[in-house]
């Protein structure tokens, strides 16, 4: 019956292929269209049914900023640090990008069970999509941050600062993709990781110099090089410092520095771009962390490849 019908496609030239050869981050790039649809769906789904819709992306960070401003700028009066709310918020933007994409990435394969267990798509796609969704939501926060910077009246951004911000984002983008890729598959095999990662990311904001100034860390641990270096070896610490280099220190004017130091009666704050407000070799450290993030992503991909085959039977 079918033999009389000519072949639908001329497949004779087409090579036989191994259907199982579907995974790998490089193949995710071949599925850009599906990736785009997945990201768009997640973005739309978040505020679906709410009357304000995407406005929530602006309302939430704005409220958060004013809370910081009220607590740290008015109640606590962190005199030694001018524009402390921006100091905190600049770090918060990048830390939140990381924690959101790490958390969502870890859950991503479980959340897309139906597709992951039935369709031959590269499963790295799910954590990558989670990262892109988190990146998208960082946009409105950056807008709020920029408005806050401009509101200080002394914001003077420079090219080096823009480079610092880009470097911070590159580090966190690669690192959080690696974390998502690695833990999405581990989470399928050991479901406890959803909670472990949650606990970990709740701790993270306190391990980076945003609620407290870097100068305090240098002061406390400067004499104990091991702790000091360990503290700085955290790629997130570096990303936060780079963000502060881009947005916070550029809002600090000479007058701010003078006022702070006069009020304290001693030289407690420098206000310059170099040390002591930032560690030595800020940018060298940044590029080193970028390298670490790339290596970590490669390691995550290796782990994923090794465990990927066990995903469908465990979902």
């Amino acid at each position, binding site marked *: 019956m079918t033999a009389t*019908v000519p072949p639908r496609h001329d497949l004779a030239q087409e090579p036989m292929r191994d*259907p199982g050869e579907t995974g790998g981050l490089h193949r995710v790039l071949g599925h850009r269209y*599906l990736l785009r*649809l997945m990201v768009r769906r997640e973005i739309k789904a978040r505020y679906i049914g709410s009357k304000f819709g995407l406005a929530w992306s602006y309302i939430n960070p704005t409220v958060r900023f004013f809370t910081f401003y009220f607590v740290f700028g008015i109640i606590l009066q962190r005199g030694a640090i001018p524009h402390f709310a921006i100091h905190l918020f600049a770090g918060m933007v990048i830390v939140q990008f990381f924690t959101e994409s790490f958390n969502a990435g870890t859950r991503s394969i479980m959340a897309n069970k139906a597709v992951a267990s039935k369709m031959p798509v590269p499963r790295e796609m799910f954590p990558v999509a989670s990262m892109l969704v988190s990146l998208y939501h960082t946009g409105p926060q950056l807008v709020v941050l920029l408005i806050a910077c401009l509101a200080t009246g002394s914001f003077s951004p420079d090219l080096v600062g823009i480079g610092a911000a880009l470097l911070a984002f590159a580090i966190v983008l690669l690192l959080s993709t690696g974390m998502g890729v690695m833990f999405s598959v581990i989470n399928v095999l050991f479901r406890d990781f959803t909670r472990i990662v949650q606990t970990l990311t709740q701790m993270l904001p306190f391990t980076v110099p945003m609620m407290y100034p870097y100068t305090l860390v240098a002061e406390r641990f400067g004499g104990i090089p091991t702790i000091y270096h360990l503290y700085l070896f955290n790629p997130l610490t570096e990303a936060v410092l780079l963000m502060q280099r881009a947005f916070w220190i550029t809002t600090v004017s000479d007058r701010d520095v003078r006022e702070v130091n006069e009020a304290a009666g001693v030289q407690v704050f420098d206000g310059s771009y170099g040390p002591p407000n930032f560690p030595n070799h800020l940018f060298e450290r940044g590029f080193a962390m970028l390298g670490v993030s790339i290596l970590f992503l490669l390691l995550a991909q290796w782990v994923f490849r090794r465990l990927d085959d066990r995903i469908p039977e465990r979902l």
Partner: protein
Amino acid sequence: MVTSIEVDDVSKKFSRHYTRTLQQIMVAKAKRKKTRETFDALKNVSFTVEQGEAIGLMGLNGSGKSTLLKCIMGVMRPDEGTIRVRGRASGLIATGAGFHPQMTGTENIYMNAAILGMTAAETEAKFDDIAAFADVGEFLDTPVGNYSSGMFARLGFAVAVNVDCDIFIADEVLAVGDQPFKKKCMKKMEEVRDSGVTLFYVSHSAGSVRKMCERVIVLEKGEVGFDGKAGAGIRYLKYDDDEGSDSENANDI
């Protein structure tokens, strides 16, 4: 003839205990019980399929049909042996996968088609066919969460049967959907088969397998029990006994 699928000595093992806590594992270890038990989901399965063949895959529940199809699709990889396919494999295997209840029918059609491997242009070109086949009318702009279960299933089927592929896998019973829709689906699958696409059809209904396929592969506990003419395969499974009473359901899947 062009070979479409080549399955060579494929085996796949599954473990029986996946969801145990650390405590349970420790207790089992202390009692010197096995902490790991496996069984063969597929065992030394081999066969070759030519392009354009229509194959009925039969067997009791748990005989390994879905595992085999997942290996052919490339969702799973066999522990041993090799599988080679030519062209794109798709079909009624993940109908409705990726459907978001709060998105409209149209949005879900694009999403689902992309998951099944179609590009934006292909979906665009087929969109009218898909919409006509689903026949949900103005509900296309309604979130699919508000669909009746029949409409939801119809939309999933409509996308799946319209995917342009070289190997069509039908691993789902039409449990939902009314009689006219079932008839429409069977007709569409016959069309797909007659267009020269390789068809893999999983069913427990002897009547519809006889109608759709000329060859039957029967799996028994993961092994190929029978591979040959459809009629003989159905007799091998002893499914022909009740075919008389089944005749009015012949259109069923």
